[in-house]
C-alpha cells in the first residue's frame, strides 16, 4: 500500500533524508528505530505532507497514487494517518466538533455520505472505551491543556475513530506511564487487521513486546542502515547504536 523509493527530503535547504526506500504491505507492522535527530519524524512529516519539508528526490506511492501530488487533507482522505510526536493544541475547538468534521471531510473525499450524529456518537463511545478516554476530554478543546499522556491517548483515539488504511505513529509511546502504554498498545492492536498497515516510530523495545512488528528498520543520519525482524530491536536494546554506526562506516 505504501512504497517509498529513494526518498530525499530537506528542510530549509538542509538535507535530512538521504535516500530512503521502504515497502509496507497490508497487514504489516513496521517499526522504525534510530538515534535522536536521525530523521524519523522528518520521514513521518514528509509522508503526511507538512509544508515545511520539501521532498527533493525519489517518489512515494500510496494506494496506487503519487502521494507527493496530494495535499495533506487529500492524503488523509486516501487513508493516511499520522500520530504526532507533539500533538498540537487548538484552543476553542472542541474535540468532538473537530473529530466529526474530520471524519465527514474524509467521507466526503471518498464520495460517501456524512455520518449522522447518532451513529457518530455511538462510534465515539465505543472507541472511548477501548482507549479509556474520559468523557470530559472529549468536550475540551483539542489537546488544550492535556497532559503529555492524555495527548498521546487522544491520538490513538482519533486513529480508532478515523480508521485509516495506514497509521504512522511517531513515538506515541513516549511519555506514557506503564498502564497508559498498555492501553495505547491495545488501541493499536484493536486497529490492526489484514487490510491496514502500521508504521511505528519508537525508541523502546518495550512497546514492541505489546505490538509485535513484522519488520524493524534502523534509521541513521537520514538512511535506513539496517532492516530485520523483531529480534533486531532486542539486539539494539542490548547493544545500543554504536556498533551499527561502526559497521556502517
Amino acid at each position, binding site marked *: 500500500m505504501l512504497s517509498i523509493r529513494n526518498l530525499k527530503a530537506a528542510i530549509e535547504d538542509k538535507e535530512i533524508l538521504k535516500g530512503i526506500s521502504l515497502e509496507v504491505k497490508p497487514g504489516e507492522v513496521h517499526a522504525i528505530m534510530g538515534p535522536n535527530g536521525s530523521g524519523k519524524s522528518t520521514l513521518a512529516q514528509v509522508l*503526511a*505532507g*507538512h*509544508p*515545511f519539508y520539501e521532498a527533493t528526490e525519489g517518489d512515494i506511492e500510496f494506494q496506487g497514487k503519487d502521494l507527493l501530488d496530494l*495535499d*495533506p*487533507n487529500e*492524503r*488523509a*482522505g486516501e487513508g493516511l*494517518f*499520522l500520530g*504526532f510526536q507533539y*500533538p*498540537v*493544541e*487548538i*484552543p*476553542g*475547538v472542541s474535540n468532538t466538533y*473537530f*473529530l466529526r*468534521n*474530520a*471524519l465527514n*471531510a*474524509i467521507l466526503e*473525499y471518498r464520495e460517501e455520505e456524512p455520518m449522522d450524529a447518532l451513529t457518530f456518537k455511538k462510534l465515539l463511545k465505543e472507541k472511548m472505551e477501548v482507549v479509556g478516554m474520559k468523557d470530559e476530554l472529549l468536550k475540551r*478543546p483539542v489537546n488544550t491543556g492535556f497532559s503529555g499522556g492524555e495527548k498521546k491517548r487522544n491520538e490513538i483515539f*482519533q486513529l480508532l475513530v*478515523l480508521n485509516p488504511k495506514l497509521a504512522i505513529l511517531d513515538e506515541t509511546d513516549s511519555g506514557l506511564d506503564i498502564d497508559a502504554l498498555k492501553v495505547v498498545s491495545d488501541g493499536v492492536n484493536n486497529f490492526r487487521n489484514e487490510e491496514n498497515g502500521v508504521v511505528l516510530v519508537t525508541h523502546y523495545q518495550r512497546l514492541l513486546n505489546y505490538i509485535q512488528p513484522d519488520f524493524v528498520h534502523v534509521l541513521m543520519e537520514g538512511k535506513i542502515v539496517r532492516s530485520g525482524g523483531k529480534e533486531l530491536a532486542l539486539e539494539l536494546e542490548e547493544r545500543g547504536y554504536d556498533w551499527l554506526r561502526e559497521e556502517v562506516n
Partner: protein
Amino acid sequence: MSEESTLADLQEYTDTDYKWGFTTDIEQDTVAKGLNEDVIRFISKKKNEPEFLLDFRLEAFRYWQTLEEPEWAKVHYPKIDYQDISYYSEPKKKELKSLDEVDPELLETYNKLGIPLEEQKMLAGVAVDAVFDSVSIKTTFQEQLKDAGVIFCSFSEAAHDHPELIKKYLGKVVPYKDNYFATLNSAVFTDGSFVYIPKGVRCPMELSTYFRINAAGTGQFERTLIVAEDDSYVSYLEGCTAPQRDENQLHAAVVELIAFDRAEIKYSTVQNWYPGDKEGKGGIYNFVTKRGRCDGESSKISWTQVETGSAITWKYPSCILRGDNSVGEFYSVAMTNNFQQADTGTKMVHIGKNTKSTIISKGISAGRSDNSYRGLVRATKGASGARNYSQCDSLLIGDQCGAHTFPYIDVHNTSTSVEHEATTSKISEDQLFYLQQRGIDEEDAISMVVNGFCKEVLNELPMEFAVEARKLLAISLEGSVG
C-alpha cells in the same frame, strides 16, 4: 410594509416635494442632495414629528456646522462631501431589475448562507415580486410583547405614540454634541428602533429588528433608544449575517441604552455591510456611536458584536457605570480582510462604587487589512473598588495585514484594579497542518482555528445568531489563504 403602502407613500412623498418648493432638478423619485435647515424641516414635517424633535434636530444641525470632520490616525478614506448626500432617501430603494445586475460574489455568499431567493433579492435591493409570508409571524410577536407591556416599535412611531418617553431620554446618553457623526445623526436621523421595558418585566423573547412591524430598510442614519426600567431584562439583536448592499456609502448610527436599578440590557450586533470588492472599491463607511448608561445600582449592560463588514468601521460601544455595583461588558470579534479598515473598541467609565467591567476583544486581520483595538478604562475619584479586566487578542492571517492595540487607562482613585492582557499571534502553520492531516481542507482548517480563537465572544451571542456568525466568519475568510 406592503408593496401598496410603499407605493402610496412614494406618491405622497413626491407630491410633497413640490409642495415644499423643491426645484426642478429633482427627479421624480429622489430628493435634492445637500443639507440645510430646509431639508431638516422637511424630514421632520414628513415624519409629522412633535415640535421638540424638530428643535433637537435644528440645534444639532447648527452645532454641526461649527464642527470640523475629525481625522484619525489609523483610518484612511477620501473626504466625504456632505452636500452630495441625499438625507431623506425615497422610501423605496433604488431597485435593480433582476439578480443578474448584482455582484456575483455577493450572490455566491447568499447561496452559501442558504438565504432563500426572494430574500436575496430584498437584501441586494432587487424588486421583489412575491410578498413575504412573514407578516403573520410579526403580528403574533407584537401581541406577545403587548401582553408583557413591552414597547417595541420604530423610532418614528414612538415619536407619535410615546413622545414623553422620547423627550425624556433622547440624547441623554449620547448628547448631540458628542462627536461629529453623532451630531450629524441627531440632525438628520431618519428612523430606527425604540424599546421600553417597564419595571420588573423580563422581555419574553429576544427582540430583533426583523420582527419590528413596518421595519423600513436599515437607514443611513439610524437612531436606536432602549430604556430598561428597574428589575427588567431585555436582549436585543441588531443586524443580519447576510451582507447588505446599500446605495449610501456613509452610515452614522446612534444607539443609546439606559438601565435602571438591577435592570439588564444585552445588545448583540452582527454587522456585515458590504465591504467593497477585492480591490477595496465601494463598500460602506460605518461610523457608529453606541453608548449605554448603567444608571441604576446593580444594573448591567452587555455589548456583544461580530463585525465583519464595511470598508471602514469606526465604533466604540461604551458603558457609563454610574450606579453602584453596576456591570459593563464588551465582547467583540472584529474581522478584516482585503482592504478593510476597522478601528473599534470600547470605553468603560467607572463612576459608581464597586462597579465592574469586562472587555474581551478578538481582532482577526487577513489580506491587506488593518485592524485596531482602542479601549479606554476610566475610574473617577468616587469609583472606589472598581474593577476592570481587559483581554485583547489579535490573530494575523498572512503577513500583509496589521493589528494594533491601544489601551488607555485613566484611574483617579487608589482602590481600583485594572488588569490588561494582550496577545498577538499568527495563525500557526502547525495548527493548520494538524487539522489538515485529519482530512480537513485548508480553508475549513483556518475557519476552525479562527472560530476557536473567537469562542469566548461567540458564546455570548444568542444561540441562533452564534451559528450564523460562525458561518459568516468562515465565508469572510475565504480567499485569505495562499
